[in-house]
């Protein structure tokens, strides 16, 4: 008696070819069920991509602006009265060893800025007038998009520098023509317009005038309302602790210290929480897509019983039939996954472009997304493939 016959082996190429053959003959159905997967993956990739891009933009801003900026503002006294920062606050802060730069602005709450004298006084445009110190740009990180910052000797005269939003609201698009605006009851010449300031957005709506000009023309009392402090990167926490007592040794509780980069990061976290919700929606879409793949595969097995029978007659083992349908399901999902990745990347890129962000799709998201589709393909295809493999050759050949 001769040795027992051994089943043939399929090469990996044959396995792929046989799996793909089933897809080629039903293109519309394959497209639709792959689309289900693609939508799920695209949603997840886009959510992760957009959130990462926004994070990258934040990192870029923080890089540009630094996380070592601290602001000092007057708080309320223990009997709930508004307080003021002492005049010597700036000098005291500058003497802290790790402080690299210190500057201040003073808000002039009763002074408003207008395009000209004909504007109704109530139409303030939500602009705020500040007295700004000459070293403010270096400390906060301001740079002019047009013109320049206040400097001596013009800072003693009625000249103004506008924040980005303020310039837009006042209709000033440049300083070349030396436009004039009305601040309080005086005409001020605009000498500069600033770029947007992400770390201190209220400065975007600011109209800056010189410290001495404010005193001369606008009745400014000389008390700073916000002191900006740059410290060494590794000393931010200590300086933050030390600031209240430095500014007001007698009443440190009347001094508010904050770190604007923390506020930006907090804003980011809120946006991420929203992203988590969308991510969950994407996962649901993916699940539904997986069910669609199972459905397609179950129908495929039903329709192709005679093909299964033929393959068994040609010598295919149960395992080879199982593998064929599993590979078909994997290819179907992979097709959807690749399509979804592509759509997700395009959506992320498009959205980032409109926001002027760097487009970032993290590698872990693409690899994870693709792995998820393969996992879904395997799970979705398992039941139909097992059903196909369980058919006896005669059952399969009989059913048409």
């Amino acid at each position: 008696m001769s040795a027992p016959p051994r089943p043939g082996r399929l090469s990996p190429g044959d396995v792929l070819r046989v799996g793909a053959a089933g897809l080629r003959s039903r293109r519309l159905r394959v497209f639709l069920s792959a689309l289900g997967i693609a939508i799920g993956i695209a949603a997840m990739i886009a959510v992760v991509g957009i959130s990462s891009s926004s994070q990258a933009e934040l990192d870029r801003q923080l890089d540009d602006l630094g996380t070592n900026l601290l602001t000092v503002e007057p708080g309320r006294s223990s009997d709930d009265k508004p307080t003021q920062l002492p005049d010597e606050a700036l000098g005291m802060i500058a003497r802290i060893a790790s402080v690299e730069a210190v500057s201040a602005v003073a808000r002039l709450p009763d002074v408003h800025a207008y395009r000209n004298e004909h504007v109704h006084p109530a139409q303030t445009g939500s602009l705020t007038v500040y007295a700004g110190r000459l070293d403010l740009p270096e400390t906060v990180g301001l740079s002019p998009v047009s013109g320049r910052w206040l400097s001596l000797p013009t800072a003693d005269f009625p000249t103004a520098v506008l924040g980005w939003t303020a310039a837009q609201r006042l209709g000033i698009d440049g300083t070349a023509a030396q436009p004039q605006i009305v601040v309080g009851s005086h005409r001020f010449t605009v000498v500069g317009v600033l770029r947007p300031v992400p770390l201190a957005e209220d400065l975007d709506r600011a109209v800056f005038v010189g410290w001495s000009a404010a005193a001369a023309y606008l009745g400014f009392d000389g008390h700073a309302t916000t002191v900006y402090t740059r410290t060494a990167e590794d000393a931010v926490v200590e300086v933050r602790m030390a600031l209240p007592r430095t500014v007001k040794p007698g009443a440190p509780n009347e001094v508010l210290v904050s770190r604007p980069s923390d506020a930006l990061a907090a804003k980011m976290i809120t946006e991420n929480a929203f992203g988590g919700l969308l991510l969950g929606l994407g996962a649901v879409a993916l699940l539904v897509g997986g069910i669609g793949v199972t459905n397609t595969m179950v129908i495929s097995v039903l329709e192709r019983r005679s093909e299964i029978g033929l393959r068994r007659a040609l010598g295919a083992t149960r395992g080879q039939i199982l593998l064929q349908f599993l590979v078909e399901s994997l290819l179907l999902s992979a097709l959807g996954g690749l399509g979804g990745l592509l759509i997700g990347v395009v959506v992320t890129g498009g959205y980032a472009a409109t926001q002027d962000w760097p487009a970032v799709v993290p590698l872990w998201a693409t690899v994870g997304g693709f792995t998820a589709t393969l996992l879904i393909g395997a799970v979705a295809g398992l039941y139909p493939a097992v059903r196909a493999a369980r058919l006896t050759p005669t059952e399969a050949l009989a059913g048409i």
Partner: protein
Amino acid sequence: MNVVELTDVTKTYPGGVRAVRGVSLDIGYGEAVAVVGRSGSGKSSLLNLIGTLDRPSSGQVRIGGHDVAALSDRQLSGLRAATIGFVFQQFHLTPGVAVRAAVADGLLYSSVAARERLRRADTALERVGLGHRLHHRPHELSGGERQRVAIARALIGDPPLLLADEPTGNLDSASGETVLGLLTELNAAGTTVVVITHDRELAARLPRRVEVADGLIVRDEREPGVVPFAARIGAAR
């Protein structure tokens, strides 16, 4: 040794239908046999048993010397791949798959490299007279041509045993004639051919006829003077 040896074989289906009720049948290498019977006679069950697509309820089935009962499902698959070529009434050609690829698939489960499969598909198609139709798809072919493609797929692996289930059942008489001629040629070249049919005229053209009724062999007659191929070449296999 015989390529097919059935000894007291029965087949009872779930529900108690006894399709084969004790059949003993030997088919030698190189024979050409018609298994003939009405529908419901049990001849299709017999085909499934000879083709190792099904296992007997009792009795012994030996194909190519292997006792089917002793083989696992995997080993049976290997036996089918190496020993048996099938031709079905419905052709079983997948729509949209070109003739050459369909024929090459006859060797898919025989551990033959893809390039070699295609080369041998060309040879097999030449053999059935379709060498000029390599790249046609099934819907572009006539019924007779389709069945010749199916025959090419069955013979590409050069199996010692070719099982044909109503091979002319879906064909007009001229196409049927071509297919029968082809099977006769194959037999002349040494392949054992077993044709299952209900068509007595067709059966009469084969040198040995096994008539089945009610799950039993009621007649087994040979054309006098016809010597099985294996006997002629000295049972080389």
